[in-house]
């Protein structure tokens, strides 16, 4: 077999589309660094995407998301779906390194040709994290994975962005994760289409279940899609309990948004979000580049405490002229 490093983009895409793991892995790497994405790659992927259900799974660290996903994969595979997983873990702000451990819980699926797992580190880039997830969704969608699972930790801004791109949002929590006031705090209990109380075999699970029920009883106020009533399910991923119910709810939600037309609306909104994040990333990268190149000048400005505001405008202006000179054809 010829070496992969010498393939051109078209050959690489052809191999990826025919299911070659290595070629798919390489295409995903190309998508990871926004401004190293070869021209036309996003277009050729997006032209073939728009059919898969994107499932965002979020929740506090240690709530069992990865194990739950592993069980869910088994259930989805039994029903003939091809499943892709983008597992996002944080990078160290100090060393820039990351230990990507989500995959560990899903390794039983490693050799299943209908499952593709990709880990992504946040790299401390603002927006970059959600952008990588968005571009990878287009790729997996184009490669025919009809269920795409995005796994993130917590509910920071970038996670909310990713969730905006998902058709179906699942929020995972566990017994003892907080009382009714925690559950009522803004944010967490508003974004989900399906709520999962995992580790239901643990003590306190009944109490937490009651808290969650209470938090979800809020009528239709503020819901983005008021025709769908969020569901609350109990699972025990480690014991394999409640997983099929979760898969059924995911499919019910899919049928629902297909009927209401929200399915394709989401595809459009995730692509517009992708464009916005690409633009932001272009600005951020150029700010860093110009900033690095102006260190001496900026140090002098800082020392003299003179024209600080003007210097910031100069950075911005140089960034604009840099971007003006980009070849976009």
């Amino acid at each position, binding site marked *: 077999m010829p070496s*992969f*490093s010498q393939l051109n983009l078209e050959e690489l895409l052809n191999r990826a589309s025919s299911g070659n793991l290595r070629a798919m892995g390489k295409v*995903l790497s190309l998508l990871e660094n926004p401004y190293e994405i070869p021209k036309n790659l996003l277009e050729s992927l997006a032209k073939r995407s728009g059919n898969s259900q994107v499932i965002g799974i979020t929740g506090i660290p240690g709530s069992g998301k990865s194990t739950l996903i592993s069980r869910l994969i088994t259930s989805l595979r039994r029903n003939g779906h091809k499943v892709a997983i983008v597992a996002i873990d944080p990078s160290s702000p100090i060393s820039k*390194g990351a230990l*990507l451990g989500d*995959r560990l819980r899903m390794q039983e699926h490693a050799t299943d040709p209908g499952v593709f797992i990709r880990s992504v580190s946040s790299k401390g880039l603002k927006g970059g994290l959600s952008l990588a997830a968005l571009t990878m969704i287009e790729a997996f969608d184009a490669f025919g994975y009809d269920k795409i699972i995005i796994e993130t930790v917590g509910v920071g801004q970038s996670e909310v962005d990713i969730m905006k791109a998902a058709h179906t949002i699942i929020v995972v929590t566990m017994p003892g994760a907080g009382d009714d006031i925690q559950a009522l705090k803004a944010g967490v209990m508003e974004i989900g289409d399906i709520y999962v109380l995992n580790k239901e075999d643990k003590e306190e699970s009944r109490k937490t279940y009651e808290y969650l029920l209470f938090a979800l009883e809020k009528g239709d106020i503020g819901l983005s899609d008021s025709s769908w009533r969020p569901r609350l399910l109990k699972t025990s991923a480690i014991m394999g309990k409640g997983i099929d119910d979760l898969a059924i709810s995911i499919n019910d939600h899919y049928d629902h948004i297909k009927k209401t037309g929200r399915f394709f609306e989401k595809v459009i909104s995730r692509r517009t979000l992708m464009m916005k994040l690409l633009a932001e990333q272009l600005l951020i990268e150029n700010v860093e580049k110009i900033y690095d190149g102006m260190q001496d000048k900026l140090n002098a400005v800082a020392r003299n405490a003179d024209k600080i505001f003007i210097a910031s405008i100069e950075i911005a202006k140089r960034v604009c002229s840099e971007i003006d000179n980009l070849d976009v054809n």
Partner: protein
Amino acid sequence: MLSPQYTKEKQYKVLVAKLGIDGHDRGAKVIARALRDFGFDVIYTGIRQTPEQIISAALQEDVDVIGISILSGSHIYHMKKLMEGLRSLGADDIPVVIGGTIPIIDVEELRRIGIREVFLPGESLRRIADVVRELAKEKREKESYRG
């Protein structure tokens, strides 16, 4: 590529795995943590992995280096399987290193089947990180499509 002139520091991705019937993972976890602290993205796939599982993970994650930890004594048998598997998929350009309780007399044989570096007991974490970084760099430089 829209901004080729600005090259940031490279982020290398390494797979750390236990190969074969071998549940002793303290060493592998120490290595995984050390590589993280030296700035790598580390994928840890856990204990008792088959060559097929490791190869699938390496291809899906598009890693730059595969690091295997073996304390079971069956390193030559398993590493031969792993290297054959990589070769059959045209993926033998991914450098493979190994560490563990490996007798010094086996080093030559492991080298012969294509293992790029063998780390014996007592190796320093810094040297492991340096060797892994060099191998990752060398691999990326050969690729036309990754910055």
